[in-house]
């Protein structure tokens, strides 16, 4: 019986693409569609969920649809492009290599190669699915002629949704608690958050603090950021939590006053939807997909200006009514994004190709 089989270079249980892939697999199987996950390299944590891509030819059935989760360079791209099955590309964005080159040339090279691979896949792809309109523009530019936008499924875990009931914001007599969630990588531009924090402490809120939750994606950037914090004299104000469990991330959301996003490049930004789910105000630079995903549920700062960011955050947190308005807007925006139904929509689109 033909199936829909997913291909992903490496399946991480904890990242957005990994969750999305596992969620889709469960949805396909629930509909009685055979569905396996094939990887290029095995992650020990998910070894029981995956098979090596080289095993697929032995399992293939006429009518199979191959769904490629594309976020980085991989030998899977040319390998899949050479196969005869119907191919669907689910595109999660490529970080522009110029943002990475100064920190890790090998990673930058990989991203450049990923761009070439994306263009190679375009003429072979029956359907391309972007998780934001911003990402869809990349697909069109790469030559994809049949593409749609469906946000990532399983973006919001149960721990995050549970955190909405434990929110403890609005404390007095202390500084604002800024929160950053996501991989520590150059495109996230966390150094801009640190500079804004320095400005905020100098002018508006001397006790403001920043909690950074997320694993180091580029080791050299992570090391530089920690050193920068130390050299700027902010050791006591900035805490690096590293990779955290879902429960720990949920606790961080519950205790923060504002989610600060200074990314230079975002294809979707799952943490913004998590913040909306727990009613946490978001202040972000208007970059990448952030205006589209955030909508009216947060405040966008147009210019990349730490002074503007710091004053926007301080003004917002001094206005509880405005924070409540944003929380309500967040719930409306989440309903509009319909993350809960996103998986089913994607499955419908792919199954129609069988």
């Amino acid at each position: 019986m033909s199936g829909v089989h997913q291909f992903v270079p490496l399946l991480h249980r904890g990242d957005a693409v990994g969750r999305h892939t596992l969620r889709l697999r469960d949805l396909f199987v629930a509909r009685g569609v055979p569905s396996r996950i094939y990887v290029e390299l095995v992650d020990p944590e998910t070894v029981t969920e995956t098979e090596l891509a080289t095993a697929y030819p032995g399992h293939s059935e006429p009518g199979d649809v191959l769904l490629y989760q594309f976020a980085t360079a991989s030998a899977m791209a040319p390998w899949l492009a050479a196969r005869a099955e119907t191919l669907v590309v689910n595109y999660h964005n490529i970080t522009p290599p110029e943002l990475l080159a100064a920190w890790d040339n090998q990673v930058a090279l990989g991203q450049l190669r990923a761009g070439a691979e994306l263009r190679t896949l375009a003429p072979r792809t029956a359907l391309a699915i972007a998780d934001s309109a911003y990402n869809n523009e990349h697909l069109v530019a790469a030559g994809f002629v049949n593409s749609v936008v469906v946000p990532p499924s399983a973006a919001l875990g149960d721990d995050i949704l549970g955190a909405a009931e434990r929110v403890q914001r609005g404390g007095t007599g202390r500084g604002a608690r800024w929160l950053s969630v996501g991989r520590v990588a150059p495109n996230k531009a966390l150094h801009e958050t640190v500079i804004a924090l320095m400005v905020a402490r100098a002018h508006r809120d001397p006790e403001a603090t920043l909690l950074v939750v997320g694993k180091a994606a580029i080791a050299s950037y992570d090391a530089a950021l920690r050193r920068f914090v130390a050299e700027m004299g902010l050791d006591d104000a900035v805490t690096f939590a590293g990779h955290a469990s879902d429960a720990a991330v949920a606790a961080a959301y519950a205790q923060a006053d504002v989610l600060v996003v200074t990314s230079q490049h975002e294809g979707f930004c799952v943490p913004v939807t998590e913040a909306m789910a727990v009613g946490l105000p978001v202040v972000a630079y208007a970059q990448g997909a952030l205006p589209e995903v955030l909508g009216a549920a947060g405040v966008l700062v147009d210019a990349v200006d730490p002074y503007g960011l710091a004053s926007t955050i301080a003004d917002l947190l001094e206005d509880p009514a405005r924070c409540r308005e944003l929380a309500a807007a967040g719930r409306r925006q989440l309903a509009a994004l319909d993350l809960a139904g996103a998986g089913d929509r994607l499955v419908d689109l792919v199954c129609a190709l069988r």
Partner: protein
Amino acid sequence: MSVPSPPQRSSRRDSGGSEDHDADAVAALRAAFARLQPQGSGAWNFLAALTHLSDRYSEYRPGASELSKLVASGQAVPGGAGPRRRRSRLSAADRAANSGPVATPELEWAMKQVVEAFRFLSARVAILEERAALEDVPVSGTPWLMPAQELGRWVEPVVAHLVASDPRGEVVHGDCGEGALLDALESAGIAAHGAEPRGTVALGALERGHSVSVCETADELSARSPASLGGVVLSGVVDRLPLPALITLLARVQRTLTPGAPLVVVVRTPQVADDEPLGVVARDLLGPRALHARTWALLLERAGFVSGAPLVADPASDDRRLVLSSVRR
């Protein structure tokens, strides 16, 4: 996905000083962070050439998986559309965009050699960067144990001395704090620049419009051309650096000063070292402090300076600092 609501935008900002000064402050802080980039500037560096060349001319080397070996070897894909050659990795559009004049086989062969040379250089650079990283000891907490101190009542004699020396070029103040000396120098018509590694301290000077680099004085001097400065004032930094770093710093001062230009050193004196406010931890980390006046004279002489009479020699005063003057030979 539904069409999202229009986003709310903010353009309000609190200014530390004028917006120009704030923009300069942000630029200085970003420059301080950019210094920590391990592989050059944010612009494409030499490895970018490898990136582009290898994409066009070299073998496919995406990783170390069985799948990548299969693709690299150009073997048939079982059950697939048949064997593939590496060159077909690029789309026709890519080739058209990148190719320019049609490449000859000789040129392709030559470019492959260039790519291999880049790969070799890349490996060497990686090794050297690794070694450099080991020697590049991050700033520990030590500088922060000593609060940035303004020169207080020593500002006036230092400025008078510098004015009298008629500096031909910018004067750099190492550990400029919030910029009190820069204020006085600029009021006296002397172009001045500060180096201050503590970002939170430097921010004050930057927002008041001073030209300040957020970095160690030694790094600031390294970035200057030889014989380009009209004068240097060192305060604070000379009290917290260990002796080997102090010798290196003086060598850099000597390199960057024009011949005959003044160096002023504002230093704590040993008579008060035991009860100075740094505390036990700081003194332990800094090593034996402070140096005697005779030791300073020796250091300056060895570094290529001719010592003059101390501008201030008042170890019994509250400030308990010695202000030494010298000129580059």
